[in-house]
């Protein structure tokens, strides 16, 4: 099991413990009517998160000692297979990071250039680089998709994001 998997397994409940604890402390400053619900939930959450952190740490240390990994069901709820994700030796975090960066990049260019220009640029680059399409095919498809979204957007009154430098629709 790669390091990042262990970090995720133990780190997630530990992060939950920190968040619930901070939420509980913050809730102490609310007035009584606003306080009881978040205080109860965050208190219970912090308690459970502490148990989950210990439980996960024990599981990870057992795995390190050579015990078989706990079986996981292939479902929407969990990763396809905890062990399969280590097949090529790289950690899941390292393999997922470039794809998260694609998502982050799209949102960043949307933020700067607005919907039309940002989406055109993103689709063009993604279809060229990720899908391996020819430039002109990627360009035609990108323009077509953006035109379709503008048409339907007008029909169903979609809100399209304006950018810092350009409005959503530069016309």
């Amino acid at each position, binding site marked *: 099991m790669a390091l990042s998997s262990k970090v995720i397994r133990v780190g997630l409940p530990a992060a939950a413990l920190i*968040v619930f604890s901070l939420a509980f402390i913050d809730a102490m400053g609310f007035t009584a009517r606003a306080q009881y619900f978040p205080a109860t939930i965050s208190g219970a959450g912090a308690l459970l998160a502490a148990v989950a952190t210990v439980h996960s740490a024990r599981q990870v240390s057992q795995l390190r000692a050579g015990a078989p990994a706990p079986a996981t069901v292939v*479902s*929407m709820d969990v990763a396809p297979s905890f062990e399969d994700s280590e097949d090529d030796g790289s950690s899941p975090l390292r393999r*997922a990071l470039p794809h*998260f960066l694609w998502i982050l990049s799209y949102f960043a260019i949307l933020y700067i250039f607005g919907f039309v220009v940002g989406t055109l640029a993103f689709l063009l680059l993604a279809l060229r680089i990720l*899908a*391996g399409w020819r430039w002109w095919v990627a360009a035609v498809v990108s323009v077509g998709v953006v035109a379709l979204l503008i048409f339907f957007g007008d029909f*169903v009154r979609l809100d*399209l994001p304006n950018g810092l430098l350009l409005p959503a629709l530069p016309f």
Partner: protein
Amino acid sequence: MVEVALEALTALLQPSSMLYMLLGISIGIVVGVIPGLSGIVGMTIVLPFIYGMDPVNGIAMMLGLIAVIHTSDTFPSVLIGVPGTAGSQATVLDGFQLTRQGQGARALGAAFTASMFGGVFGALVLALLLSVARPLILALGSPELFMLTLFGLSMVAVLAKGNLLYGLLAGLAGLMIGTVGIAPMAIEERYTFGSMYLWDGIPMAPLVFGLFAIPEIIDLLIRRGSISLDENGLSGSATQGIRDAFRNWWLVLRSAGVGAAVGLVPGLGASVVDWIAYGIAKQTVRNERFGTGDIRGVIAPEAANNAKEGGSLVPTLILGIPGSATTAVLIGGLALMGIQAGPTMLSEDLPLTLTVVWTLAFANIFAAALCLILARYVARISTIPGPIIFPFLLVVLAVGGYQSSASWGDLVVLLGAGAVGWLMREAGWPRPPMLIGLVLATAAERYLSISINRYEFEWLTRPGVIIIGLLIATIIFVGGIRRKGRE
């Protein structure tokens, strides 16, 4: 009554009314297919045209629209793992798994058939309960409404079976996220960090997209394959799905019953009906493999979310109490045509009320037939390689998520929830409990506060509270014992 019903049917069958109904159905289908848009968007599109319209035509258009949204919203839920609307969140769990197994067309076939029967069942419930439901709805006070939210929350325990510790933790995290914003019982900001965006709380759509869709997209890109893992691309057919729905007719019927019953309760919301139906089905069917691609995990929520519309129209029409933002706009639309929602809907406006019933039934049948025709072709989306489909999916998610509040915060929530969803997936935490907690947090806090302020702890002895409490215990424990016995 029969004469009036036939009169209403004749009025609806006029070419102009049918045309308006088909227009409403078309808009409803488009709104349902686009993730992030809800019924209220569709209603605001048609509302400007309603003023002064013939009431039968207006009702045909508005109800045609409302009735079919939960039919077409299944397309994105099943094929790309993104709920089309809040009412089809639970469909994602098994629907998307079936698509991954090459059974997308089958899942759609089963879903549309279940939706159709659910919708017609809802129309029937509306017709039957119109005159008798009034005292029942008025008997529901805050204590009973709190118990019903607790009923919804109990589904966390059902869905987290086998992973209870992390499931409960995810449920509590959802409840915690639900407390962000202005407190329901005090004018006070909670966890907003000075951001006005958070005053209304964290919006549902980008959170759901992030939790469920982003991890799947990342997985798709890592594998560089298509959504369907089946080497043959598509092995299931829509016809097979239709047969599945017929084979599970009893599940369709009881899930539709659950949907209509939840719909009758004003304010419980569309977001919870599919989870309740899914949870009950998980507890009651034999040899379940829910969450791993069980067709019954698609049938149950789909029958329920369409049946809910019929149930929710009972308080809307006869009491003038809107159960959701969409039905609130519907009341406004009726007023624009000179119709006052309330007890008069059972006397002088009875023919119009029965037009609503007929429209619900017809619209559900038409929409299901149309979606079934399209299912076979649309299901091919699941065979497109990940690197090709990813850019289009991301654009749809971004635009859909942005519709929540038309603010950049929506995209931040989408990205943040995507990261959390991916981490939860990698760590083996169940994600549905988090959504249930989020959906019910505000209602649970509000109804509990009102109950305690008004009745102190005496509310615990109310018959309705005890009955719902027993129902929760029965579903959780008896279902669990039955399953253990079978295992």
